């Protein structure tokens, strides 16, 4: 216990300031009502769906919760079920074998809901593209509000995408 407490004290607080929203990442002109976004902005529940990624994007989504980025410190947390979620964070390309699962996850998420597509593959299909095995970009399967390109996008870029989706209109 001595080692543990000493380590906690020595490590200190690592959290860095979060990024600010970037409207250029918005994929649609529609957005949720300001009143709803104000609620989301204070406590956002995210369900992450890997719809066919190479797992690179998952590594960076994991990293958003490390002590440096501390996503949970902003009131944003990952939940175990779409039933509990306000937002789906989807990595792609959407493989044809994941299409039905993604559609059902989307349907299971209560309205109002947001979708953020993560990574080059989620945004455009990326290197895997569209084929007999891949539906390509996430918006080919479910509506997408915000896209975050990158291979994989950095934790800050992912957080920026999430924050953009819940940003209030100026």
């Amino acid at each position, binding site marked *: 216990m001595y080692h543990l407490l000493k380590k906690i004290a020595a490590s200190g607080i690592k959290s860095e300031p979060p990024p600010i929203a970037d409207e250029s990442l918005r994929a649609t002109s529609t957005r949720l009502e300001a009143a709803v976004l104000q609620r989301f902005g204070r406590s956002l529940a995210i369900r992450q769906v890997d719809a066919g990624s*190479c797992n690179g994007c998952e590594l960076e989504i994991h*990293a958003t919760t490390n002590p440096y980025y501390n996503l949970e410190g902003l009131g944003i947390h990952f939940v175990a079920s779409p039933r509990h979620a306000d937002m789906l964070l989807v990595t792609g390309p959407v493989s044809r*074998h994941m299409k039905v699962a993604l559609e059902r996850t989307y349907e299971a998420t209560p309205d109002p809901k947001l979708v953020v597509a993560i990574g080059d593959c989620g945004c455009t299909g990326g290197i895997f593209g569209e*084929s*007999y095995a891949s539906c390509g970009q996430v918006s080919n399967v479910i509506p997408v509000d915000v896209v975050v390109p990158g291979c994989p996008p*950095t934790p800050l870029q992912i957080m920026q995408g999430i924050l953009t989706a819940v940003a209030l209109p100026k």
Partner: protein
Amino acid sequence: MSFFTDLDIKTQQLLAQPPILQATVNPQQYRAVAERVQQNGGRLVALWGSDDREREMNMAVHAALAFQEGLLWLRLPVGEGRPVFPDLADIFPVANRMQRAIYDLLGLRADKAVDERPWLRHTAWPADSFPLRRDFELEQDFAGGFDDYPFVKVEGEGVHEIPVGPVHAGIIEPGHFRFSIVGERVLRLEERLGYVHKGIEKRFEGMTLEEGVRLAGRVSGDSTVAYAWAYCMAAEMATATMPPSRAEWLRALLLERERIANHLGDLGYLGNDAAFAFGLAQFSRLKEDMLRLNHTHFGHRYLMDYIIPGGVVRNISAEGIAAIRQEIEVLQRELPTLKIIYDEHAGLQDRFLTTGQVTPQLAAKLGLTGLTGRASGQAVDLRVQFPGVPYDRLDVHMATHSNGDVAARVSVRFDEIVESLRLIEHIIEHMPEGEVHVPVNCVTDGKCGVGWVEGWRGEILVALETTQDNKIYRCHPHDPSWQNWPLLEYAVIGNIVPDFPLINKSFNLSYSGQDL
């Protein structure tokens, strides 16, 4: 290689040291060689197929077998008229799923195999179409049918099923797990994968050797260095290109960095899965420090696209070396403390010890490999057995354990980080000076190459065949997860359901790498 000389097989040498041999065999020889390899303590590394009807009027099944001295690549021609090949699952149980994948992709059936269910194919393409046949177009859209996979039913009083996935509760890749349980105890787990099949092998066809490395680096993102290196090794072998020695040392530097980063992440999550959030905070902090150094000095947090055919994209700066030196110091100071905290934490050890056990006997029988294999007494590490440049100069110390439980897999990870730090220290001190890239030679039709790399998860193999204009004819990337997924089904038997995430994490297998 004396153990199969009497079988009258003509081998062709692809590489002298370690010997990588290629041979075309008939069905009898195919099975006989596999049996000999198994009897001599060798293993089946990979199994795949190809459609060579345009070239050689037939299709083929390929097996990569590791034996004491090196690697043997068998090619078994299979006629279109009778598209069957001998089943190897009785010799190497790991062959089962790979053979089913060969059927799904090429329509070649393992003769009288016990399990003939589809593996990679769900509904994306019809049962009578085979994506890796040459006349199959990459870009098409079949309307998906009804997915009805015949899981094995466990019956009896009080038995019920828990279906999990493909969308999981955490931030992990998709796959389906079917638990049959009584009370809290797992009677049986059946996995079903293939959800992230995205046509990687088909996509490789027709790419240039230069283009292919980017795709190879995205077969499984967490092993991008290992895949890119294995791919380049294969491309360089096929084109008889000699990468500069400094580039090889830099590749090894990257491979060890990838190993450490992944092990750090896993150690954190293993703590977290046993409700020890402190571990996750500490290890993810150390991992993030590494990723940031990667970004600053190698241009990418996960080191993607740094290794290319002919070498690496650029040299490392003096500041980069200095930063790595400092990083090693920090890790060497912090790790022992964290290890003490893990070892002395009674609650954590209670969850780790005897959980998800795979005995060395079972591991040997079913072919457990890589890190997980070493934690179950399987002393196999390519960096030790078949060291190429620069591992032949590094004298790698292999980490093993005989308990085969979660605790053993944690212990091996700690030991491997310590060893990788030592290797990195040695690499940055003794790396030869010089160029880091040479142009790749032009290649003619039908040249073969093999890449074989000990990634952090286990041995990764890339088998490559070229066509004219430096293009890829066939490229098969093999992930060690193929070997280890079936063992996870055994590891959870008799454990309680809540321990599954912990056991699964301690294996940490790739879905994307095996679904392709």
